[in-house]
């Protein structure tokens, strides 16, 4: 059974008697991708799990309003993205952001601190981070990214270009530093 027929089946089931077996298949199909994005975005397994649950519950509730002109993953990512923003707003209201940021580093299990996504998070805004993720990892089109982030396509393009440029500059800077260190070590050795 392909994706579209599975969604139609789930919609029909929910409308009739609420049998969740077809929806369970949808959850199995998308949970890994969504969880990966949420882990990268939240850097906290507890938050990621909470948002994952909330996303699928919302998807179940509003499955009848799903527009098939978009990919199902686009729709799920839109819900997840909104939930993340909602949670961040809640944290900032409760002044818990600081404590969460401190724990995220510890909670991100087996993620190396030199991981480029951790570096990017410090360097770029949350939306620019999302643009990079959806473009390179999820390989979504500009149109779909714009739909998820509720912004124009030109804005997505600009954001992507600026993020790349920042990363490139960072890499150049790193390379330059590496060269300096290399020559310094060499000179010290010779002296």
């Amino acid at each position: 059974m392909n994706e579209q027929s599975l969604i139609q089946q789930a919609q029909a089931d929910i409308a009739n008697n609420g049998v969740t077996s077809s929806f369970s298949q949808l959850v199995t199909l998308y949970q890994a991708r969504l969880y990966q994005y949420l882990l990268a975005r939240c850097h906290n397994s507890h938050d990621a799990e909470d948002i994952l649950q909330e996303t699928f519950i919302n998807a179940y509730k509003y499955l009848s309003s799903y527009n098939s002109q978009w990919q199902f993953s686009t729709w799920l990512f839109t819900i997840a993205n909104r939930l993340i923003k909602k949670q961040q707003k809640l944290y900032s209201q409760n002044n818990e952001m600081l404590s969460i940021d401190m724990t995220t580093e510890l909670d991100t299990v087996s993620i190396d601190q030199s991981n480029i996504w951790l570096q990017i998070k410090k360097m770029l805004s949350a939306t620019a981070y999302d643009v990079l993720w959806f473009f390179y990892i999820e390989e979504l089109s500009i149109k779909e990214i714009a739909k998820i982030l509720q912004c124009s396509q030109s804005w997505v393009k600009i954001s992507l270009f600026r993020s790349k440029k920042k990363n490139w500059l960072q890499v150049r800077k790193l390379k330059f530093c590496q060269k300096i260190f290399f020559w310094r070590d060499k000179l010290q050795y010779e002296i």
Partner: protein
Amino acid sequence: MKYKNAEFRDMRLIENKLKSDAMAFRQEPSAALHENIMQNINKQHKVVTRDEKVFSIYQWLVPTGFAMGTLLFVGLNIQQATVVERINMTLPSNGQEMTAMADMMASFKVDLLPQTLEMKLTNHIKIEQQALQQDLKYLKSLFVL
């Protein structure tokens, strides 16, 4: 997007690094989490259906209750006789006859005047007769005396 050679190499490097480092976040969510999601969805479904049932009861109860209340109010406050009168006034028993009469009256408008004069004359004669009879009675009583 076209890059210069050095830039291209760097950009490719970054893209590859982005893809490879993203793999670090690739962790399968636990089976318990999937179970939990499905349990929550089932619970949610139950809540939704219960809400819908309550809503459907209210949907029927409110309008029927309102209609019954209005009927009771009308029944208690307006007497049956007045209702019947009003019905008789507004709805004539034989509508067709009434309209035919009205049409006839309109067509004989010219003849109406003499008819009324005749009626008045007959009435006047009757009154005169009654007066004469009373006078006769009075005269008779005088003769008796």
